[in-house]
């Protein structure tokens, strides 16, 4: 069985559309996205609510999870880096895991074939 890898990309919400288009272009068609809150070096814009000043330490981020097999991991990472890079704190992180198996429920496909997105 080929190596299946999961790539988790945590980044700015407004970058999603571009990221999705870029990943689609290199053949990554499936992904799962969620709203998360990030805590890191980047801090939020200082605000003021009824006279009390505060600085949010949690910032809205998105987590894009994509499981790949045929498309090389390095290409995915490169693509994501290119699209998401602004050079400012808060660009986000990419986490890479190995994965044991994947199953497509619709037709029972397992492994690599479960990831090629034909209808």
């Amino acid at each position, binding site marked *: 069985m080929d190596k299946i890898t999961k790539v988790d990309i945590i980044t700015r919400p407004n970058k999603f559309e571009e990221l999705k288009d870029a990943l689609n272009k290199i053949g990554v068609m499936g992904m799962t996205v969620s709203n998360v809150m990030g805590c890191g070096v980047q801090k*939020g814009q200082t605000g*003021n609510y*009824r*006279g*009390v000043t*505060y600085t949010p330490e*949690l910032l809205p981020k998105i987590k894009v999870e994509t499981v790949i097999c045929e498309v090389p991991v390095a290409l995915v990472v490169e693509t994501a880096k290119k699209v998401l890079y602004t050079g400012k704190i808060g660009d986000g992180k990419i986490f890479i895991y190995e994965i044991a198996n994947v199953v497509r429920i619709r037709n029972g496909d397992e492994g690599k074939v479960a990831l090629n997105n034909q209808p």
Partner: protein
Amino acid sequence: MDYGMAIDTMWVLVATALVFFMQAGFAMVETGFTRAKNAGNIIMKNMMDFAVGSVVFWVFGFGIMFGTDIGGYIGKVDLFSLSSFEHLGLGIPKEAFLIFQTVFCATAATIVSGAMAERTKFSSYLIYSLVISAVIYPIVGHWIWGGGWLAQLGFHDFAGSTVVHSLGGWAALMGAWIIGPRLGKFTSDGKPKVIKGHSLTLGALGVFILWFGWFGFNPGSTLAGTSTEAVSHIFVTTNLAAAAGAIASMILSWVRYNKPDVSMTLNGALGGLVGITAGTDIVSPSGAAVIGIISGIVVVLAIEFIENVMKIDDPVGAISVHGVCGALGTLLVGIFATDGGLFYGGGTKLLFVQLLGVGAVALWTNVTAYYLFKAIDKTVGLRVSSEEEEEGLDKKEHGTESYADFQPRVIYLNSDQI
């Protein structure tokens, strides 16, 4: 056919409907400025203090407030408001007057719920609500509007800056102080933290509704649609004070916090409305604008003072809006009244009477409310458990949740202050 009476009655009843609608305004402001997990509880309090207040005022309160005067301090109890109240010399049917006064009473009662929001036991709130409508409010009402001692001294509180608003505000002060701040409102070293409201749009809608209702509250208090000049004048002064209050708060918050604060601006409009209520009939439009500006400034400073210095947690600013601006607006009558005000050559006589009245009502209300809340606390308990408070009163007190279809943002709450 007595057309004059018909016109006056219609006027009072239309005003009654508008003042009733202010309950919706209070409900929206209070729920909008607090957290989603307590929204249903606040709604319930607003609904029930009106319901309980309506019944209790009819059964007891109206008699105490408007019954035959006993020594200038209290009216004769008249169960179910059955007698004819002819001594009032009303130009409208008694029942029109009764219902108009009922909605005013409920306004005073409802002010407290905002200041004690998000931590008060529902059953305890019902008890408070009953007592204020049956006793605390009607007695002050008697002093000022029922021919009691303050009325006899010439105290001027046209539509209730003091009777309704500051009374509600002082009760709110005692309640919020005795019950203590919400969990997480202050750091261990006493610095206030941010607890954001869950819907600025509902809060703003509430302010618009209140402003709308105030066009019944103030002009209706003439009890006479036939007083055309007076009611027209009251519309103008009411509106200008509100507008000026909103502008003043906005500018002050802009200066102090670098950004025009939405909720402070909303509070400023309300502060202006509360401030003008006492003198709406006897100050000029310019006077009204100045009262609005002063109220708008003071409301911001008072909110800060109560939170930062007094360390009292008033989630919606009720103490500042109703208590402080109510008292202040009543005093300013002594200065801006075109007939008798200090700035119009009337000397300090009116001002002193105003001060006396404001002080007397503050004393009465703070003392009675203090003992009321203490008594409730000792018996049934005033505050929910900390577990209930954390989970939210909707779940724990009412077994439900208000926004079942939306993903709540459960973290974020106490984690974003400096």
